C-alpha cells in the first residue's frame, strides 16, 4: 500500500482550489464539428472549382457515385473514431475503421486490375495527367477537416496520438477528395482508384507525421 505523499496532499488542495465548471466533451458535438467541416469543404469546392456537369444534370456515373460514397463513408467512420478517441477509456476498440479502409482498397485494386493489359495508354491519358492535381486538390480541401479534427482532439485526451493522427489524416483525405470530386471531370475507375485514393493516402501520411506532436498532453 502506498503511503500518502505530503506533496500529493498539497497538490490535491491546489487542484480543488483551481476547479472550474467544465462542459463535458460530447460525441454529438464532435460529429457536428466534423460534419460542418465537410459541409464547408463542399461549399468551398463548388465555389472555387465549380460543379461537374453530370452532377448538375443529375446524371453521375455509377462508378463515381460508388467511389465518392465510399470516401464519404470512410471519412465519417474515421471522424467518429477520432471523436471517440478524444475521450480516453481502457478497453475501447478503435479498429472498426480498418474494415471500411479495406473496403475502400477495392478501388485501387480495381484500377490496377482493369489496367493490366492497357497500363501504358491508361497512364498516358489526360485522366492520369490530371491525377496529381486531384491528389493536391484533395489534400488541400482536406485541410479544413484536418484542422477541425485536430482542434477537437486538443480539447480531448487521445491516449494513442499516432493512431489519432492517422485517423485524422484518413478522415480529412476522404472528406477533401469527396469535396473535390464535385468538380473533378473524370469518372473512370483508374483515375478514381489511383489518384483519388492517393489523396487519402497523402493526408493519412500527413496526419501520422504532423498531428501526434500536437496531441500530446
Amino acid at each position: 500500500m502506498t503511503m500518502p505523499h505530503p506533496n500529493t496532499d498539497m497538490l490535491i488542495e491546489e487542484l480543488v482550489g483551481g476547479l472550474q465548471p467544465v462542459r463535458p466533451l460530447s460525441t454529438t458535438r464532435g460529429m457536428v464539428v466534423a460534419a460542418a467541416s465537410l459541409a464547408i469543404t463542399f461549399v468551398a469546392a463548388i465555389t472555387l472549382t465549380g460543379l461537374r456537369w453530370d452532377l448538375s444534370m443529375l446524371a453521375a456515373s455509377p462508378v463515381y457515385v460508388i467511389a465518392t460514397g465510399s470516401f464519404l463513408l470512410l471519412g465519417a467512420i474515421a471522424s467518429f473514431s477520432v471523436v471517440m478517441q478524444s475521450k480516453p477509456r481502457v478497453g475501447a476498440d478503435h479498429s472498426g475503421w480498418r474494415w471500411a479502409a479495406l473496403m475502400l482498397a477495392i478501388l485501387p485494386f480495381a484500377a490496377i486490375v482493369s489496367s493490366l493489359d492497357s497500363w501504358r495508354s491508361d497512364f498516358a491519358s489526360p485522366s492520369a495527367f490530371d491525377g496529381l492535381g486531384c491528389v493536391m486538390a484533395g489534400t488541400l480541401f482536406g485541410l479544413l477537416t484536418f484542422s477541425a479534427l485536430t482542434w477537437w482532439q486538443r480539447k480531448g485526451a487521445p491516449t494513442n496520438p499516432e493512431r489519432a493522427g492517422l485517423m485524422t489524416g484518413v478522415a480529412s483525405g476522404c472528406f477533401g477528395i469527396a469535396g473535390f470530386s464535385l468538380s473533378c471531370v473524370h469518372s473512370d475507375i483508374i483515375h478514381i482508384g489511383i489518384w483519388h485514393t492517393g489523396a487519402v493516402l497523402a493526408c493519412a501520411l500527413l496526419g501520422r507525421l504532423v498531428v501526434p506532436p500536437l496531441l500530446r498532453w
Partner: protein
Amino acid sequence: MKPDERSMARLTAMAQTGDRDAYRTLLVECRRWLGAYFAGKVPPQFRDDLIQDTLLSLHRKLATYDSKRAFLPWLAAIARYRWVDQLRSLYRKSETVLDDSHAAWSDEPAIAARISLERLLSRLPTGQAEVIALVKIEGLSISEAAAASGQSESLVKVNIHRGLRRLAASIESE
C-alpha cells in the same frame, strides 16, 4: 466508506459542475486507487510522481469524462498514458540512466526498479531486451553493446528503437 465505481462516477459528474467538496473526495480516492494500480508496475521511487502527474492530467482533462460511461476505465486510460509517457522519457534521456541519476538511492528501491524494468523487458524478444538493458540500463555505448551482444551497431540501434516502441504498444494495449 470507500466509494465504489458508481459513486466515483457521480463525484466526477459533480466535479464537472464545479463542486469542490466532491472533487476533493474524488481526488483522494483516485490517489488511493492509483497507488494500487501502479504498485505492481512502477518502481516505488517513481510512483508518487506518477500519481501526481495522473491527478494533474485528470484535472486538465476533466471535461473528457462522459458520465454515461464507467469511471475507472477512464481513470485507468489516463494513468496508463502517463505511465507510458514516463517510460518513454525514462528510456529516452541518457541522463536518466538508472545507474547514473539514481546513485543516491538506497539499494532496495534500486533493486525494485531493476526488477520492474526487467519484468517489462521480458515482454520483448531476447535480442531487443538485451540491447535495451545494455544501453539504456547498464549505460554502455552502442559500440560496446554491439560487442557485448554480438549484434552489429546498426542492428543494436534498430532493436532499441523497435523494442521501446513495442514496449509502449504492449502497455497501451493492456
